[in-house]
């Protein structure tokens, strides 16, 4: 039972991550390689605020969101005015810088040793101290996020983002402020990613920088691309796929040491095939063209 709940929690966390990355890839047409950086910022911000300043979970999560949104301005203001290629390089670079900070700034983040004993969150006086309660919490938070995503993406804002994805130049000659909208989309996706980070930190009670690497960004990217970008159900399908896959490998008794490498090979291979033959993924709408 606990195993099932564990999966449920991880799936909720990754649902939020993939839906938020989808705002960039599927709706704005921006391929970002730094999503796990914001995931990490949310995780560390929440953990540190709860442990060092004894802020309650809800306040910490909100501050984490604000921090992510603010930090997202650095890569976005820098590179969104320029060619696509600069954006790729900037997001990769930003990911690496954030990882470096998490790994090397021992005073703040405890570096490679990570942060342990992250306390259980408390919501409205109820201490979330069992897996079941956490599963309820994560499902509730996911549901709120999901409703927000739905609202945002079916609104004029979402429609305008799609237009930008299709033809930026046309959108700007129709009066849309493309640059400003892209920055907003980027900030939105960063904010939601940090919610996932907060959930992750409080569930695992331990975080270290190795959960927030470029590989992790690619993992989230895989979830979006395999499931398909551009609509709501694609990333959900993809997330379930990439979360279930390692479990299948485990049930085939493949040792964990190999499993990490094997997973990357499988996802990478799948992406290669999908990009070539079915860029809209399993259930998506947008063909990344």
């Amino acid at each position: 039972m606990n195993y099932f709940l564990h999966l449920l929690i991880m799936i909720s966390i990754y649902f939020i991550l993939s839906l938020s990355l989808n705002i960039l890839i599927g709706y704005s047409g921006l391929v970002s390689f730094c999503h796990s950086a914001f995931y990490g910022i949310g995780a560390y911000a929440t953990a540190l605020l709860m442990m060092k300043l004894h802020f309650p979970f809800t306040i910490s999560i909100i501050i984490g969101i604000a921090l992510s949104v603010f930090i997202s301005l650095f890569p976005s203001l820098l590179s969104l005015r320029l060619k696509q290629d600069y954006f790729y390089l900037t997001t990769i670079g930003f990911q690496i810088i954030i990882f470096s900070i998490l790994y090397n700034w021992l005073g703040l983040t405890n570096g490679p040793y990570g942060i342990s004993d992250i306390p259980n969150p408390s919501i409205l006086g109820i201490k979330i101290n069992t897996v079941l309660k956490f599963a309820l919490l994560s499902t509730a938070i996911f549901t709120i996020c999901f409703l927000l995503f739905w609202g945002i993406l079916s609104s004029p804002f979402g429609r305008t983002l799609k237009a930008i994805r299709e033809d930026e130049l046309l959108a700007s000659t129709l009066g849309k402020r493309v640059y400003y909208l892209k920055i907003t989309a980027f900030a939105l996706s960063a904010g939601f990613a940090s919610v996932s980070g907060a959930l992750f930190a409080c569930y695992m009670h331990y975080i270290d920088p190795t959960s927030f690497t470029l590989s992790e960004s690619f993992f989230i990217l895989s979830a979006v691309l395999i499931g398909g970008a551009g609509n709501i159900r694609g990333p959900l399908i993809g997330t379930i796929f990439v979360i279930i896959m390692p479990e299948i490998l485990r049930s085939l008794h493949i040792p964990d040491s190999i499993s990490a490498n094997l997973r990357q090979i499988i996802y990478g291979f799948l992406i290669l095939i999908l990009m070539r033959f079915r860029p809209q993924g399993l259930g998506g709408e947008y063909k990344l063209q």
Partner: protein
Amino acid sequence: MTILELRGIKKYFDGIRAVDNVSLSFKEGEISLIVGPNGAGKSTLFNIIAGLLTPDEGEIIYKNKLINHWKQWKRAREGISLLFQEARIFKNLNLLQNILVAFPSQYDENPFAFLINFGKLRHKERENLDKAEQLLSLIGLKGKSHYKAEDLSFGEQKLLSIACLLAKGAEVLLLDELTAGLSPQMVSTILPLLKKLADDGKTIILIEHNLQAVLDIADIVHFMNEGRIVASGPTEEFFQREEIQSFLAIDFSLSLLNIPPKKGVD
């Protein structure tokens, strides 16, 4: 009333003078026609007015303001509307969505508008939906409103992009090869529309090779060649001039043979 004025516009590409000291002015309610051979710089001029290109020299005055530093989106919001030669549309969106996007809206830029302004947003969306359907009827594509834009024929895509311009709201319409790719039927639907817009005080500037179609509605004609305006005049007497007729003999026969204008420096 002069709404748009170009003063001494020059644009060079690698040493070639695409636009060479062009000065023109356009009045409200006027329909102007710019003709000339391929590569004369007509589309480049449009791109400069719309803000896609910056002139190397010269000023653009719109509604008595210097707008050289205005970005594309600002010019668009203030009424300058460009119709691309290539019939640009949002391919993967359906027709209705294409037009809905084009409506100017203060809710476009706010991701949380649906929370904050729920009632007003819904009202505006309904309004826009009605207007969009009206526009689709106007261009005869109401039945296809849920088709993906990329599934339309070239002519239909052109009509769609015209509808989007109308949805956006235009004071000055820059129409680049409007009739290219449109069937005579479609042309006869559009032209009265343009005339009505002009009567309502909008300014229309046309680049055309298909002169037959537009001669009736154009007030003024400008002849552009090698980046310069070589002749201008009211339509009636313009085409009586000998030098114009010889220039056009070549161009006219090209358009009769339906040779599409070359995409290039123009």
